[in-house]
């Protein structure tokens, strides 16, 4: 039999797949990488009865806010390391592997700075937190489904489509 070969092409990954992959990765980060930090946070902070009680506590104890910020930043660094190392080495995270999507560079080879800069939205500080709103909006309204961080880092998240 001389059947024509299966034809494939790479295009922008579908949004729901990207969201599902991201949720999967966040769950892995939360349950594995953040596990030891959760103990620090619960030990560090008392249990509050209400939001006003918590607010009053942080206002009167500025030292706790600083400590909490140190822990949050360290956790963010681990989340960035997770995405950066996996995407740099494998072009995929476990979430992306499950949904068959991967990261490519718009230039030649995927470089480390590109992997870092596409994950900077994970830093819980101004101005990076603005990306939590801006990034998804860019993903929805651009033809290539690219986040702003992806446009700036010259990367794309793609999937392989099979025709025929």
């Amino acid at each position, binding site marked *: 039999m001389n059947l024509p070969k299966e034809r494939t092409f790479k295009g922008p990954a579908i949004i729901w797949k990207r969201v599902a992959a991201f949720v999967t990765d966040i769950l892995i980060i939360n349950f594995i990488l953040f596990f030891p930090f959760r103990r620090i946070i619960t030990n560090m902070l008392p249990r509050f009865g209400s939001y006003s009680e918590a607010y009053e506590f942080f206002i009167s104890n500025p030292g706790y806010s600083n400590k909490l910020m140190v822990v949050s930043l360290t956790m963010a660094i681990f989340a960035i390391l*997770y995405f950066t190392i996996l995407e740099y080495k494998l072009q995929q995270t476990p979430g992306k592997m499950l949904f068959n999507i991967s990261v490519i560079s718009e230039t030649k080879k995927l470089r480390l700075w590109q992997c870092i800069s596409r994950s900077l939205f994970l830093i819980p500080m101004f101005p990076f937190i603005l990306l939590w709103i801006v990034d998804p909006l860019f993903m929805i309204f651009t033809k290539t489904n690219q986040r702003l961080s992806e446009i700036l880092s010259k990367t794309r998240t793609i999937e392989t489509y099979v025709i025929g």
Partner: protein
Amino acid sequence: MKTIKNKWFSAIMIIFLLAILSFIVSGFISVFLGGEASGGNVAIIPIKGVIIVDNLKIFGQQVSSSSSIIDSIKKANKNPEIKAIVFEINSPGGSAVASEEIANTIKKTNKTTIAWIREIGTSGAYWIASSCDKIVANRMSITGSIGVLASYLEFSGLLQDYNITYQRLVSGEYKDIGSPFKHLTEEERRLFQSRIDKIHEFFIEEVAKNRNISEERVREIATGMFYLGGEAKEMGLIDVLGGKEEVKEIIEKELNISVSFVSYKEEKKLIDLLGELLSEQSFFMGRGIGSSLFDMRTIRGLEVWT
């Protein structure tokens, strides 16, 4: 191109290594950030060594500064999870001002306060203990010693022996009262004594008020004599004979909670710890030479100690 199986293996390995790293980093963070509010519902604030006002470290001597103790009291008081504050006292006393500052802060707290006297809780340390709701001490603990001390060494005779003259240049008759280089006149001694008696009177008033004992009775006890825990209990200077377990029982009974202690200490940065270590080492090295020449610990100048 890596196969899918290989990719999964590599991903698991990377996550595994990151997990190990996160455990190590979190360990370091919990050591350096401390966790004074960690879990417990009863704060323990240590008051150990000589009680002083500022955080000035006296070489090789354990000190408790009123500033850092007050900070810890305030932090514990503001923490909604802390239901009671226990003061672990092992101190011979110290500055009258520092002791009163701490005692006043204790009285302002809205939590149950308990003083737990260990080896020693005399003088200024007892002043602090008396401001707590209850005092627990071992039957052999040393407590009481309600009195004021301002003694000092006078070198005027020594200077005379060596033909050294003290040139008195003062404006204000009593400016150099208590100078170790001149003899204390009878008038100066009387003035000095009247101030010390006044501080002693404040001390007696405070203990009487705090312990709900008549001032006359406290005056009888306040000879500066120390008492063992058992004697102090009979005199009404303490409430319960015992240790940490008894403290726990009192709180559990009074507040109907299951007690979990949490230590509230002064937060020390790494640089402070290293500094302390170095100063202690230097002290012990120099003590051998220094102590044979001059015993610094006996010179208190005009400081008033309770």
